[in-house]
């Protein structure tokens, strides 16, 4: 199984690109086209699964959040404006739905200060796969908003502008969250690169 990473597509090939196809599907969904809706669902399911799991950190929430997201798309496809990439719009909905579901689950959202200190495994004892797993585990201990910035940047390869659009916040906030995430991860990363 491959997970499409929502990369960039060449300019001038708009009609053939997945983004252009997504836009056509969204237009059809706005007219009540179930087939187009199912195409979108199938294209985005794995990506949303990964993203929502990263944001919420709760496996039990993921499928419901994906469906909450898709229901918004079904009802609001007519509101989509082509100024943003379809995936940016869809991920933005998923992000908000994910945070909402997590908030319901936790009742008291986490803050940076309340997070436990990140455990630092003995780097010498870990192979490359083990190191990567340790880093991912450390990322999961970040607040959801910070995890989302890290994931959108390093898994989905989004620019800071797009991350800001998805998270519906200023670019400065994106940079600030990335700064804090890196600060939290720095002890582990420094250890891993041997500094």
């Amino acid at each position, binding site marked *: 199984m*491959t997970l499409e990473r929502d990369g960039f597509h060449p300019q001038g090939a708009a009609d053939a690109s997945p983004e252009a196809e997504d836009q056509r599907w969204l237009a059809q969904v706005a007219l009540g086209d179930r087939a187009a809706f*199912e195409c979108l669902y199938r294209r985005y399911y*794995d990506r949303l699964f990964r993203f929502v799991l990263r944001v919420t950190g709760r496996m039990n929430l993921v499928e419901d959040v994906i*469906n909450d997201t898709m*229901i918004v798309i079904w009802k609001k496809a007519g509101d989509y404006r082509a100024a943003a990439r379809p995936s940016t719009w869809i991920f933005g909905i998923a992000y908000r739905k994910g945070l909402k579901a997590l908030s319901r689950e936790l009742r008291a959202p986490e803050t940076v200060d309340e997070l436990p200190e990140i455990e630092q495994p003995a780097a010498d004892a870990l192979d490359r796969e083990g190191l990567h797993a340790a880093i991912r585990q450390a990322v999961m201990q970040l607040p959801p908003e910070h995890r989302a910035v890290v994931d959108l940047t390093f898994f989905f390869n989004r620019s800071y502008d797009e991350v800001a659009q998805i998270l519906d916040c200023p670019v400065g906030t994106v940079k600030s969250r990335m700064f804090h995430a890196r600060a939290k991860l720095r002890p582990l990363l420094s250890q*891993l690169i041997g500094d």
Partner: protein
Amino acid sequence: MNSAARREELYELLPWQENGTLEGAEREALRALLASDLEANRQARELRVLHSAVADEPIMATNMAMNLRRLYARLDPPRPRRPRWFMPLSFAAAAMLLVAGGLGLFMAGERAGRYVTLTTPHELPATPADAVLYRVDVAAGVDAAQLAALTGSSGVHVLEGPSERGVALLSVPAADADRVLATLRADSRLRFVTAVPR
């Protein structure tokens, strides 16, 4: 902005230099910084490890088909079941309609029944006591004389008719009654013959 602040600002862009989404002046400024700044290079190495770790996460097997069915169930909720009181109420309504319909038919029949009977006239003409009365329905065009001749009996009298519809009342001597009845019933011009009670 002093150079230290500018450098800090560029450090903040390193994650997007790492993922390749920086463009134009920002990308060039970071390239220049990385060519000369040790701290920028150290951070870039950290970010490369972080990028690699996040991107290499194993893909989880998901059950898209099952979740899609759940989604459709939410989009097309089943029609709400009728409440328990609905069935008895609907039966009662149907029964009331049936009774009302029957009553309507009955009343219509009552109104339609207001007719004057032709077979038992309330006031019979004076006839011999031993005569039998026959009500007949003859074909159009048969007059009283022809009708009397049809009976084949000289004692028959046409007391009434034939009307426009061919209805007539005959007086037949009792001794001749059966033979006249048989004769009339055998004639195709007679559509109906019956004795009238006196």
